[in-house]
């Protein structure tokens, strides 16, 4: 399906058309190929251990976010706080379809992705609190969650910014195979963006590059229907069919119900493995819904409570729970025990974050290049700082050989 683009034949024949040259070498684009099929309208059950992991992760994220909201009210968390409640099936189902070594990048609504990737609730909560035991020592904050050990290349605060970065992660995956590792790794890179981010130039430039360079990039649009107070129909042309945007770049596009974690998992697994095999990008219109406001200060006047109730009735946690009960994998008592355990884990993360120290003042000037004359103070003669110790804590470029 995706032979790499061949150079166009030289314009020798009289039928040569500059506008369509090379087109025959491009892969055909498909919309919504079926990777797995729902049986009687529902997706097949997965291994009990995986099914329970999906449930646990979704519940962990939900409980974590509830605690974040409380901590925000208590002024333990500052700045902007964007919670993921309602969208849990997306990060959890997508992550389960990836291998741990596949890189991931997302936007600012990122606590769920961090937890799904395997960051501990403690490290995530401590970062929210701006404490030294946070995943970025309290220096990044809630919109900028990074986790090198789990291949999470950030939450990113600027809308759309992460899409070209994600394409670059895919570029590196392919480059390592083709130039350095002899095709052995075959990693794919997954990026997430909101529906509002479709309107940033960065998205379009990234998509074009991913297609042009045949990159193993999977771009998942978490389409929750709103960017802040703007309904998708008011802010995005062709908002009813955003897959059209991907098709325009020659990228396979899929619509997935992001409120059903089994469906997310099955379909994303198919998409991921296809991408791995062909090194062609994919785009997913992941239909989901955020139950809460955009951030903590949003009174949600732009939509009705009935609309919210309708989506909450199809809650991804409730849906998986009843499937598991129906399949005899989980009882109500099991679920209660799981809930209790996860609540304790999240409560522990709050206590941990609360007890974690604030970063020491010296952290202000670490992890960044500092001039040899030292931090500029402005209130002492700059020449006097000539002998100041270089507070440089800058990671030297590692020899690529050592990374493989």
């Amino acid at each position, binding site marked *: 399906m995706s032979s790499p683009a061949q150079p166009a034949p030289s314009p020798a024949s009289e039928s040569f058309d500059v506008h369509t040259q090379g087109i025959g070498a491009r892969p055909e684009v498909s919309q919504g190929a079926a990777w797995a099929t729902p049986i009687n309208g529902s997706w097949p059950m997965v291994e009990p251990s995986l099914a329970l992991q999906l449930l646990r992760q979704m519940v962990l994220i939900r409980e974590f976010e509830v605690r974040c909201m409380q901590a925000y009210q208590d002024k333990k968390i500052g*700045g902007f706080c964007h919670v993921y409640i309602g969208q849990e099936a997306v990060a959890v189902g997508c992550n389960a379809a990836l291998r741990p070594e596949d890189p991931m990048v997302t936007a600012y609504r990122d606590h769920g992705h961090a937890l799904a990737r395997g960051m501990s609730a403690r490290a995530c909560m401590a970062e929210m609190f701006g404490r030294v035991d946070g995943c970025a020592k309290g220096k990044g*904050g809630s919109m900028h969650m990074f986790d090198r050990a789990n291949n999470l290349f950030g939450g990113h605060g600027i809308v759309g910014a992460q899409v070209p970065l994600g394409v670059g992660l895919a570029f590196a995956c392919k480059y390592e195979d083709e130039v350095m590792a002899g095709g052995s790794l075959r990693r794919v890179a997954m990026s997430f963006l909101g529906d509002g981010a479709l309107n940033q130039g960065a998205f379009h430039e990234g998509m074009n590059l991913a297609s042009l360079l045949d990159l193993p990039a999977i771009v998942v649009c978490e389409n929750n229907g709103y960017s802040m107070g703007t309904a998708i129909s008011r802010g995005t042309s062709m908002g009813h069919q955003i897959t059209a945007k991907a098709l325009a770049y020659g990228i396979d596009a899929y619509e997935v119900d992001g409120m059903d974690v089994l469906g997310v998992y099955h379909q994303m697994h198919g998409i991921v493995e296809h991408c791995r095999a062909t090194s062609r990008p994919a785009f997913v219109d992941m239909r989901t819904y955020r139950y809460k406001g955009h951030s903590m200060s949003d009174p949600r006047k732009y939509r009705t409570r009935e609309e919210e109730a309708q989506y909450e009735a199809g809650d991804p946690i409730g849906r998986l729970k009843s499937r598991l009960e129906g399949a005899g994998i989980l009882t109500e008592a099991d679920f209660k025990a799981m809930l209790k355990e996860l609540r304790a884990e999240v409560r522990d993360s709050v206590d941990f974050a609360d007890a974690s120290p*604030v970063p020491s003042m010296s952290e202000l000037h670490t992890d*960044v290049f500092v*001039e040899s004359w030292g*931090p500029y103070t402005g209130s002492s003669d700059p020449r006097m700082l000539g002998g100041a110790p270089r507070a440089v804590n800058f990671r030297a470029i590692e020899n690529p050989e050592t990374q493989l």
Partner: protein
Amino acid sequence: MTVREIEYRDALNEAMSEEMRRDKRVFLLGEEVAQYDGAYKVSRGMLAEFGERRIIDTPISESGFAGMAIGAAMMGLRPVVEFMSWSFSLVAADPILNNAPKMLYMSGGQYGCPIVFRGNDGAGGQLGSTHSWCVEGLYSNVPGLKMAIPSNPYEAKGLLKTAIRDDDPVFFLESERMLGTKGEVPEEEYLIPFGQARVARPGKDITLVSFGRPVNFCLEAAEALAREGVDCEVLDMRTIRPLDIESIVRSVKKTNRCVVVDQSWSFGSPGSEVAAQVHARCFDDLDNFVHRVHTADVPTPYATNLEAEYLPNARRITEAVRACLYLA
């Protein structure tokens, strides 16, 4: 004159509404400015008064809508472009820096660009390094634009009205941290001319030069220093471009000492520009080199304690004043 207390955000709102009533060419566009009444409620009620042709919600496409507004300005309209935060203007760098300020010059005087870009500037709310930009250093480097930075509600209203009437592109830097601050604003119309600093506090021992929100920290520091017997003169520059160097020189010739307080990074900043010009113009009058208080030369940290130390604050200003006076 009738004076009442209103919030900084309402002062901005009044300035825009008055100018829109006065001039049909003026319109407002940006994310969430219409139906949501503004992400920070600055444009509250404006959709109801002016309608959707003049108060326009845009998608999250800063490069697109800034460029579109510049095109409209070239046609003679007078757009006011709201960036929810100046941090988000970076994705529109090409239109706002490469088009708007150069259009008149590049067209040999044929096409002007009467436009206002406005929004929140500066850190202080734990928004992390992508959302905490102080753009005054970065953007004031570009010739052709004007830059205003009001320090309180009175200044905000008077300067924004002038900005909207100005024929050059104006970068108008507001402060999210001050939107809820109340201050005295007359009901009668007034405008504040560009390029005329205000003496926010007269004094004789040392001149504090500042821009925008940190003017208030200077006043705070001046109060504390007065108790130590140090009499500070505080200048609120109001605009960074034009830069009213004459007012600074006049003050420094009187006090013989100068501290510049600028919330941008130190390297190539309004603060370094003021210092260079004061050194050139007041070389023989100075008792000490011009001291500068800036944000630390690092990306904005998220943790509250680090962020508080990163920003100019009354304590750091006080220390700089003492050092400049050889009291440290």
